[in-house]
């Protein structure tokens, strides 16, 4: 049955989406969202969407409660208990948690930042067909007989017809009881992409800066995921040496060493060459650092690596310079001196959380 409430419910959801879209900049720069991430949906807290009324200031209300405790005993936090005063069960003012799919979120991001659709690298955009044995049919070869289903059918038929004998529980399948495994054809997209995140974890990168990287990479991920049907992520951390790590260590490792950026680029290149043949993959390396590289020599090595190797295989190369407590380094300028946007090298400076918004636009605004 179609519920009448659907109409109002959808209307409400649209209002919520509009609200999120309006406040998207806020959400982008504050990290609340990805703390509440499910598989394909995120939960977003939105305050005060209800209709305004004249009402008493909750914070100054006195309420009546019931139970044990001396004067001064705390009975609840204010955030989750707003409006609980008042006899009766007047519904409190909740902070509404609404669920939005990542796909919708990416669309909003795209609209808000006016991001162009990504053009996958010049390859045929066909999808590959693949068979999977996931369904059941009434006919088929004996070699594909599904024993369990067949037995169930036979049992069902015998119970229904009354020929099942509890004392002698013999179940004999007939022709019509037989069930066979069967396949379904599914589309497997051919264009797939990989994002390789690199981060400087040397002593000069603080938690605050890592948090910025984390927020930014969440949005990059969200957007690129909406553009490709399949996407993989790899993570590399480096100080003066680089290594590949899992997602969790990526955000939480802290080393104290110096910074040698070329080490990360080398590992990145190795990963690409080993796993992602560039004819088949769209490859996005993102590197975040405070830009304090070890030496001029290493700068040169980096330029060489990018120019001769990485750019040959990637859709684009992105570098985000996060300003640290000791100010920002030099590396962004080095890159800017050697490449420009036509080379598919994009650099961006992220001074603080508020700058994330524009930085995302820098990186993704090219539609590569």
């Amino acid at each position: 049955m179609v519920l009448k409430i659907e109409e109002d419910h959808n209307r409400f959801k649209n209002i919520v989406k509009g609200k999120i879209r309006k406040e998207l900049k806020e959400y982008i720069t504050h990290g609340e969202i990805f703390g509440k991430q499910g598989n394909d949906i995120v939960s977003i807290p939105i305050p005060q969407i209800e209709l305004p009324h004249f009402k008493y200031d909750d914070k100054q209300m006195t309420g009546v409660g019931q139970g044990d405790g001396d004067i001064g005993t705390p009975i609840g936090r204010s955030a989750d208990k707003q409006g609980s005063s008042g006899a009766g069960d007047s519904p409190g003012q909740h902070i509404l948690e609404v669920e939005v799919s990542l796909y919708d979120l990416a669309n909003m991001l795209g609209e808000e930042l006016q991001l162009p659709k990504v053009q996958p690298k010049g390859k045929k955009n066909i999808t590959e067909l693949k068979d999977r044995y996931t369904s059941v049919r009434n006919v088929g070869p004996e070699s594909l007989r599904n024993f369990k289903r067949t037995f169930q059918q036979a049992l069902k038929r015998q119970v229904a017809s009354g020929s099942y004998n509890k004392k002698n529980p013999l179940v004999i399948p007939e022709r019509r009881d037989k069930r066979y495994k069967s396949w379904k054809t599914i589309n497997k997209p051919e264009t797939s992409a990989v994002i390789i995140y690199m981060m400087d974890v040397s002593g000069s990168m603080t938690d605050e800066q890592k948090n910025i990287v984390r927020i930014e990479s969440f949005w990059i991920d969200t957007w690129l995921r909406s553009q490709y049907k399949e996407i993989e992520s790899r993570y590399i951390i480096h100080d003066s040496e680089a290594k590949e790590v899992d997602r969790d260590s990526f955000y939480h490792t802290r080393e104290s060493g110096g910074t040698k950026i070329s080490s990360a680029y080398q590992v990145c290149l190795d990963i690409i060459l080993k796993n992602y043949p560039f004819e088949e993959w769209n490859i996005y390396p993102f590197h975040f650092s405070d830009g304090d590289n070890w030496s001029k020599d290493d700068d040169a090595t980096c330029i060489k690596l990018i120019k001769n190797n990485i750019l040959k295989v990637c859709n684009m190369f992105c570098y985000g310079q996060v300003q640290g407590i000791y100010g920002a380094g030099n590396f962004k300028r080095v890159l800017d001196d050697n490449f420009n946007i036509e080379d598919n090298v994009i650099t961006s400076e992220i001074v603080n959380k508020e700058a994330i918004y524009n930085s995302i636009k820098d990186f993704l605004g090219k539609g590569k």
Partner: protein
Amino acid sequence: MNLTSELNQIKNEVEKVAKDYGLNFFDTIFEIVDYDRMNEIASYGGFPTRYPHWKFGMEYEQLSKGYSYGLQKIYEMVINNNPCYAYLLESNELVDQKLVMAHVFGHSDFFKCNSWFDKTNRKAIDTMANHGSRIRSYIKKYGYDAVEDFLNYCLSIDNLIDPYTPFIKRRDEKKYKDDEPEKPVNKIESKDYMDSFINPMDFVEKQIKKNEEDKLKEKRFPEQKEKDVLLFILEYAPLEKWQQNILSMIREESYYFAPQAQTKIMNEGWASYWHSTIMTVNCLIDSEIIDYADHHSSTLGVYPGRINPYKLGLELFRDIEDRWNKGKFGKDYEECDDIRDLKNWDKNLGLGRQKIFEVRKIHNDITFIDTFLTKEFVSTQKMFTFKLDNYLNNYVIQDRDFKKIKETLLFNLTNLGQPFIYVIDGNYKNRGELYLKHRFEGIPLQKNYARDTLKNICKLWARPINLETVEENKDILISFDGNNFKESFIGLRK
């Protein structure tokens, strides 16, 4: 879905028991619904045919989420209507259905017999459906957005009513009077030669001034402050016909729901009293006791930061019954100061049942609490007041003093827990501006809400809106001219 024959049998059994106890209810029609439909109906406040608006969608979102996370479940809904409609949740156990039916008969009796419901529309289901179809036809004619916007404005002030209006005539209908002869100055009678002594100049001047003021008062608009802001706007705002119609429907619905808010504690208490009586005395069979106890106790559970109306109402009805059974009332009892006598007081009057039936007829929550909440009750129920501790950002227990608790409880029930807002002047500054006044009772308004509400009223009134209120011990005037807010200082409060 209608009742199955098994449930119907249970219904007849429970109904008979309820009638034998003297409950006097409307015919009650039960319907079985699944959880999704239940959430839908509950979102519409019990009326599945209501007008469309996103706030019901929001309600639904919260209810269905609460249900799927296992946080809450609505067992039943009852509609104040003749015949009374009640919805049962399909997935309830049989014993739950039995309990819920007993509970429903309690509500149904309350709707029919409590005086505060006397003036409510007993054909509400039809009326709500009519409202729904009329608003739908406006949507067709004027577009979804226009109607939705207008509904938003109306719903923003749907609490600005005067819940006592149905019982009191606040003002006469407009009368159009002819010019009256000038009123003579009110002098005290005296002989000519004494006049200048008995009616000295300043006295006469005062009287003249008073006359002038009276005359001014008549010119004032409204003549007396108007609590039913909705009505005032309905009568005087420059609205289209369809807009007037919508506003009047919203107002009607507000008045329909008001008595339910006025009697929440009593109504739930009464229904709980009867479900527990009917179940434990009459209808339970042995195998159902555990499930019944489980359900009953979860309904009546108390949480520190909230008054559970089911619990408070039930306990208070039981307390009244006990006191009137034992004669624990009246002069003798109140003047007795021997604690042993008080404790063992029992005059074997047996008036309890009779008394609670009387109480359910004439009281509402405010008078109920005011009349029957005793010191002993408050201490056995371990009641307390709580307040936000700004430093800890925590609600903390503030006081266990009887007087304070009772005052707080009554304050929170007064005017349905809403601030008092009056229309003082509909032609402020002689510029057609609306002047509203918040009668200050110790708690200020939540400011961001107040401002947003002013914006919405301004859309209805179409002229600037002014609100006199109190902030940090100062009288202030918040004005909104359609674009900007302005705040001006009126004076310090003593």
